[in-house]
């Protein structure tokens, strides 16, 4: 979800939540399963085109530098080279976010971070392009740089770009502070005065990368008539279409974008990086151009998360009542505005019913790559800080962690920390399920500690268009516009089959290209199963209405006198007439003669997304000699609303937990004094491997979302929110040291243990 898109979701499904299902809630094989296990599935880099060239991007080795001159004459004279592009080959006069995106896609007069694109080249082979890229000579004048969030706000920090701040920023702040957020209610100072114990601490998290295994890849073909085709791995191809058209100065509808199979995204593929460059090279060379990022380019030049520095202060009475909570969140989001500090501010205290609460956020620019969304953007860091403080309060007051959270839990009717009144939510149910889980009371071995944490994410609706076309044999072709990033084609087929009363296997779900459907917002905000699911159900219901109409015409009775049962039109009662059920296959066979093709539609912006809470339990073992932490047991409890395909819901829970474990223990962007990223590869930026993790147990809580016909909430993101704090709390319980900075790598744990020994 983009920053400015969240608003309280108010809509509701027209009908009561359905609770009886035949297909929904089962675990059928995914329709793309065989393609994925045989190597047949086509991902971003798997496309070829006749006459295709290969592109390579030249990137800045400096954290901050003026670009004095780009000399490509030597490169252009090399064999096989067909085009070189720089910023001069893109549209001029762009404003707002389009300007920011272009500036990030191809630097203007200043390179703003290590890895910033400055030029690109296309040649007949990847090796020829790589050789020629090395022959492009860029003359730079290095400028002072800053990569740390607190230093970037200090008075003496170099200015990344003057005038980038918006009106929200209070006077007197450094120009690198570009946006400000403040929300809350009550009187926090009065609340702290009522508390028996007040704890205040500073917490820091480093930037982490989404770490999708498939690097960004695309194949662009743009003709001199401004008509083009683009194939790319993306979470949202309509967004790619819109941005590429703007950056190249062409009409949106002239560019058709097809989404490839996508090899992971986690938010990182909601942004546009290389696609406009491939199209610009293609236009210049008048040939198709394929561009594939290296892993190092992914780390240096695509969105990691924001890094943070956070101050959290909370007061509690001896009985566990939280009297006040205040937080200041400072997020560094790279050389552009956009760090998701509002979400950090809104999510941190969301699990708690607070009378006195204040949260402040700062969006800070630095010489790092433009941050991109990463699974519940902004929320995991807030949960790390807030849930660590809650844990510390419980420890010092001798209170049970779950009972204390239950005592203060947000529930239907309580006022959220950021304003609205909570609708039906499932936090209490998650906490109760965690408390009842055998994990919570299982004995621990020596050296082990147990931690828990809650987490919250909004979830999102967004523009959605779906089409369901009936084939002559009664099977259906379902076209959706949200790239399938984790098995969603299966859930869509289940929902269509449920409504139509036909077998799951009779629905073929396709991710349509931009020419086929209306605008679809990207696959983000945990919106796909909610919004495309709702759209699929509504498109199926539209189809059913049309099917019933054909039956009514055949029988010569009123449309209202026909209902749909188990894949057949039937008279709705004995008064309607005595006709045999008319199955979908029969209606389909004659549809050409009875009124033409039967196609169901849904186009809208559903606004009934339901928020999702989770509670995680983790056991960690800390080796006091090496500082190495091993996660030995892990349980995820999360509210799904309704699990359409439970295996893929469990998968989202497990995957989010695993990414959170990496963030907590290993993963971090490491910048040198020179402002260059020092660990731009999977060897030095270590994501969890199979031998690092235990099995990850899951509990699917189902508190239906009234805004979806089946109660779906969306499950993709909340699972990454609790692990950071849950593991920090487990480490504290295991080793007696509380880490305030992530990752909790062995050197940091050892330093904390040493410090503790000195006391």
């Amino acid at each position, binding site marked *: 979800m983009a920053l400015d898109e969240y608003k309280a979701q108010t809509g509701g499904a027209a009908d009561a939540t359905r609770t009886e299902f035949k297909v929904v809630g089962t*675990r059928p*094989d*995914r329709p*793309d*399963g*065989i*393609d*994925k*296990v*045989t*190597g*047949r*599935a*086509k*991902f971003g*880099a*798997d496309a*070829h085109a006749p006459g295709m060239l290969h592109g390579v991007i030249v990137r800045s080795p400096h954290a901050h530098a003026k670009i004095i001159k780009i000399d490509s004459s030597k490169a252009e004279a090399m064999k096989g080279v067909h085009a070189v592009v720089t910023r001069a080959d893109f549209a001029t006069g762009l404003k707002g976010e389009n300007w920011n995106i272009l500036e990030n896609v191809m630097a203007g007069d200043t390179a703003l971070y290590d890895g910033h694109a400055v030029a690109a080249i296309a040649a007949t*082979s*990847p*090796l020829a392009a790589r050789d020629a890229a090395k022959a492009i000579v860029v003359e730079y004048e290095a400028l002072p740089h800053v990569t740390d969030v607190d230093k970037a706000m200090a008075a003496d920090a170099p200015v990344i770009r003057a005038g980038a701040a918006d009106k929200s920023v209070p006077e007197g702040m450094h120009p690198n502070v570009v946006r400000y957020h403040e929300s809350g209610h009550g009187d926090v100072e009065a609340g702290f005065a009522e508390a028996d114990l007040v704890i205040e601490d500073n917490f820091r998290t480093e930037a982490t990368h*989404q*770490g*999708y*295994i*498939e*690097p960004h890849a695309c194949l662009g073909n743009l003709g001199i008539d401004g008509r083009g085709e683009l194939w790319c791995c993306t979470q949202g191809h309509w967004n790619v279409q819109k941005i590429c058209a703007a950056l190249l100065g062409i009409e949106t509808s002239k560019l058709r974008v097809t989404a490839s*199979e*996508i*090899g*992971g*995204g*986690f938010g990182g593929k909601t942004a546009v990086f290389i696609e406009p460059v491939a199209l610009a090279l293609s236009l210049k060379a008048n040939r198709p151009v394929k561009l*594939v990022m*290296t*892993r190092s380019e992914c780390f240096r030049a695509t969105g990691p998360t924001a890094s943070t520095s956070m101050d959290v202060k909370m007061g509690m009475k001896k009985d566990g009542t939280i009297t006040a909570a205040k937080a200041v969140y400072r997020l560094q989001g790279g050389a552009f505005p956009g760090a998701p500090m509002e979400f950090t501010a809104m999510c941190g205290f969301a699990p708690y019913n607070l009378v006195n609460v204040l949260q402040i956020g700062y969006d800070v620019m630095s010489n790092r790559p433009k941050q991109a969304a990463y699974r519940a953007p902004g929320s995991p860091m807030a949960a790390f800080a807030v849930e660590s403080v809650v844990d510390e309060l419980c420890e010092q007051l001798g209170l049970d962690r779950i009972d204390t959270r239950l005592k203060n839990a947000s529930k239907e009717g309580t006022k959220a920390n950021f304003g609205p009144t909570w609708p039906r939510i499932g936090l209490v149910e998650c906490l109760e399920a965690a408390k009842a889980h055998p994990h919570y009371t299982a004995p621990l071995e020596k050296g082990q500690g147990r931690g828990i944490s809650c987490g919250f994410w909004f979830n999102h609706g967004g523009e959605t268009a779906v089409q369901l076309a009936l084939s002559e044999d009664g099977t259906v072709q379902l076209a959706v516009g949200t790239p399938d*990033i*984790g*098995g969603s084609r299966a859930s869509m087929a289940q929902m269509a089959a449920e409504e139509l009363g036909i077998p799951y296997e009779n629905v073929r779900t396709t991710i349509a290209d931009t020419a086929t459907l209306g605008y679809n917002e990207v696959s983000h905000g945990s919106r796909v199963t909610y919004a495309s699911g709702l759209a699929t159900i509504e498109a199926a219901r539209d189809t059913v209405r049309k099917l019933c109409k054909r039956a009514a015409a055949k029988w010569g009775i009123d449309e209202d006198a026909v209902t749909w049962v188990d894949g057949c039109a039937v008279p709705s009662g004995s008064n309607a007439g005595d006709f045999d059920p008319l199955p979908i296959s029969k209606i389909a066979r004659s549809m050409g003669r009875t009124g033409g093709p039967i196609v169901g539609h849904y186009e809208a912006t559903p606004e009934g997304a339901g928020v999702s809470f989770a509670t995680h339990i983790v056991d960690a073992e800390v080796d006091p000699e090496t500082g190495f932490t091993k996660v030995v047991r892990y349980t995820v409890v999360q509210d799904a609303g309704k699990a359409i*395909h439970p*295996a*893929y819901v*469990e*998968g989202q829970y*497990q*995957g989010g*937990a*695993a*990414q959170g474990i990496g963030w907590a223990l290993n993963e971090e962007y490491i910048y040198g004094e020179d402002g260059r990223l020092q660990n731009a*590869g*999977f*060897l030095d930026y270590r*994501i*969890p*491997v*199979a*031998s690092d*993790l235990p*099995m*990850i147990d899951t509990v699917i809580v189902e508190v239906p979302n009234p805004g979806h016909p089946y109660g779906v909430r969306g499950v993709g993101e909340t699972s990454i929110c609790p692990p950071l704090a849950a593991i920090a709390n487990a480490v504290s319980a295991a080793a007696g040291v509380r880490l305030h900075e992530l990752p909790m790598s062995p050197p940091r744990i050892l330093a904390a243990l040493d410090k503790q020994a000195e006391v």
Partner: protein
Amino acid sequence: MSQIHVTTSVNGDEVEFLCDPRETLLDVLRDRLNLTGAKEGCGTGDCGACSVTVDGRLMCSCLMLGAEAEGKEIGTVEGIATGEALHPLQKKFIEYAALQCGICTPGILVAVKNLLEKNPEPTETEVRYWLAGNLCRCTGYDKIIRAVMDTAADMRGAA
């Protein structure tokens, strides 16, 4: 630079190709032989998405030159199924939802098939360490490990 002529076998088929001395086996498989099942996730041997077997030994094809394939027997994900029949691992991965995006799946299948050929009765720990060179960012490995353990048990039962 002159190209090198290589004769090799891929999934049992004899193939010939010309390649630049700098091209990796992965480059050759994907760009010259159109076998795009092996994926490039890193190019440095850290992610395992390009896993293949070379004379029965598990390899990252991004760490081997195309020219080194001369006279070898290469096995890729495209060769795991036999005609219409999927390998038991392939079936079990679908049944267990042991993949989400599926980009790491080809490499993981090549790796675990190779493991089960050497060790038909691996422990969970052995499977986890064997797969430590194959990164998956989606699943947290849970369903992958379960699918492998269950396939191994089935295959032992069938043998």
